[in-house]
């Protein structure tokens, strides 16, 4: 399989990249890891005349803790950068573990977290855990910078709310009161398989009571979704087996899965019921794992 011809640019800064994108608005695409873009180009689904590489822009591949801001993950950090990042492993092992469930080693060394977001694949593994931890994306364009909660980045399968001249530059996981978080993925194989269902949960536990909760679901709606009814149900309640069981049922009812070759709608709902309960249990008992 060969790629069609295109021009290739390596801008030195985000501003220069945005300018290139703005000047070539309908024929340019950003390339970062390329693990999603190049297969699409090989299949003829996309045929940009210009690729703007952002992988070598200084500062886009850093992961650090910034006081008062949180854990800042540069958008061109590879998935394995997140898996092995000491900062992420120390503050939110749940995020590094979620990253580790993705694809296979070779793809994790190339694919980037920014790409995982803008590809807007409903079954992507990074969005649920980032949404559960209330992460935001910093987006830069010709008109400056803006912040968007990660959950608002997506607007449909393979569609996100970025302008064609905009780039995600970093993802920020803010400091938080949540005492635990985790991501559960069900896939048909242990490697190289997309999530049939992905469930991330984050909870703040105080005196055996759930003070705050965020539940995010992957692969069961056109976009990664928050299970807001489940969250509302949980908040303020005393932890019990029955409570978590009921939370699973509410999540199963509020998600919107489809039937496809990997699983039926009914099966996905049942997985959501069970995995929501398990994810909540783990986040309550074990912290950020």
């Amino acid at each position, binding site marked *: *399989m*060969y*790629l*069609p*011809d*295109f*021009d*290739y*640019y*390596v801008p030195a800064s985000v501003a220069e990249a945005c300018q290139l994108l703005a000047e070539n608005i309908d024929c340019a695409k950003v*390339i970062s*890891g*390329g*693990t999603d873009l*190049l*297969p699409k180009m*090989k299949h003829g689904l996309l045929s940009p005349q210009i*690729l703007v*590489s952002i*992988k070598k822009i200084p500062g886009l591949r850093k992961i650090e803790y910034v006081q008062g801001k949180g854990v800042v993950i540069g958008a061109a950090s590879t998935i*394995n950068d997140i898996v092995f990042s000491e900062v992420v492993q120390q503050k939110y092992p749940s995020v590094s573990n979620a990253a580790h469930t993705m*694809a*296979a*080693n*070779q*793809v994790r*060394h*190339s694919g980037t977290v920014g790409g995982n977001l803008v590809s807007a694949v409903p079954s992507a593994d990074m969005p649920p855990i980032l949404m559960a931890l209330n992460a935001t994306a910093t987006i830069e364009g010709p008109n400056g910078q803006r912040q968007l909660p990660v959950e608002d980045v997506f607007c449909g399968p393979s569609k996100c709310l970025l302008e064609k001249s905009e780039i995600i530059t970093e993802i920020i996981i803010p400091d938080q009161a949540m005492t635990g978080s985790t991501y559960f993925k069900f896939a048909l194989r*242990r*490697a*190289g398989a997309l999530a049939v269902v992905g469930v991330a949960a984050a909870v703040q536990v105080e005196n055996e009571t759930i003070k705050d909760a965020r539940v995010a679901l992957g692969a069961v709606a056109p976009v990664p979704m928050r299970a807001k009814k489940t969250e509302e149900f949980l908040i303020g309640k005393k932890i019990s087996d029955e409570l978590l069981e009921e939370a699973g049922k509410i999540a199963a009812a509020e998600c919107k899965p489809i039937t496809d070759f990997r699983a039926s709608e009914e099966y996905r709902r049942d997985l959501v019921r069970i995995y929501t309960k398990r994810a909540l249990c783990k986040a309550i008992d074990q912290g950020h794992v």
Partner: protein
Amino acid sequence: MSNFIVDNNGIKRYLVTINVNGIEYTKVVKANTLLVNFLREELDLTGTKKGCELGDCGSCTVLLEGKPVNSCLILAIEADGMKVTTIEGVASTANLDNIQEKFLEYGAIQCGYCSAGMILSAKALLTENPKPTEEEVRAGISGNLCRCTGYINIIKAIMAASGQEVMN
């Protein structure tokens, strides 16, 4: 990427220098040249195999700066200035690498199509983790598909290459 010329058809051709198995190669490539095709067609290093060409099978695995990647999903131009190791560069002398020897000894080669990628994934694994558990070996080669489905012998060979006892 300032070093380019435009050919008669208006296509840009870029000058890249890639270190492959310790040798610096300076070549003119089109932007759409994939690293796997650069290795196979420009350098005649056909040990790197093409399978799915979509990043699923791992046949085209090479080490880029020591890390295993699918060379079907990397543009040659992206590897400009970087170090690539292919199966031809695994053995540093006339003798085979220990991993290659163990693949032969344990019958882990089979049809041979996945072997180059498997051995590079194994090389990367053992470089970072010289004494992996069997579970870690399985995870380490999980991005490489063997259509003979002879994974057991491959796992045995990698365990043996790490100097550990091989279970029957």
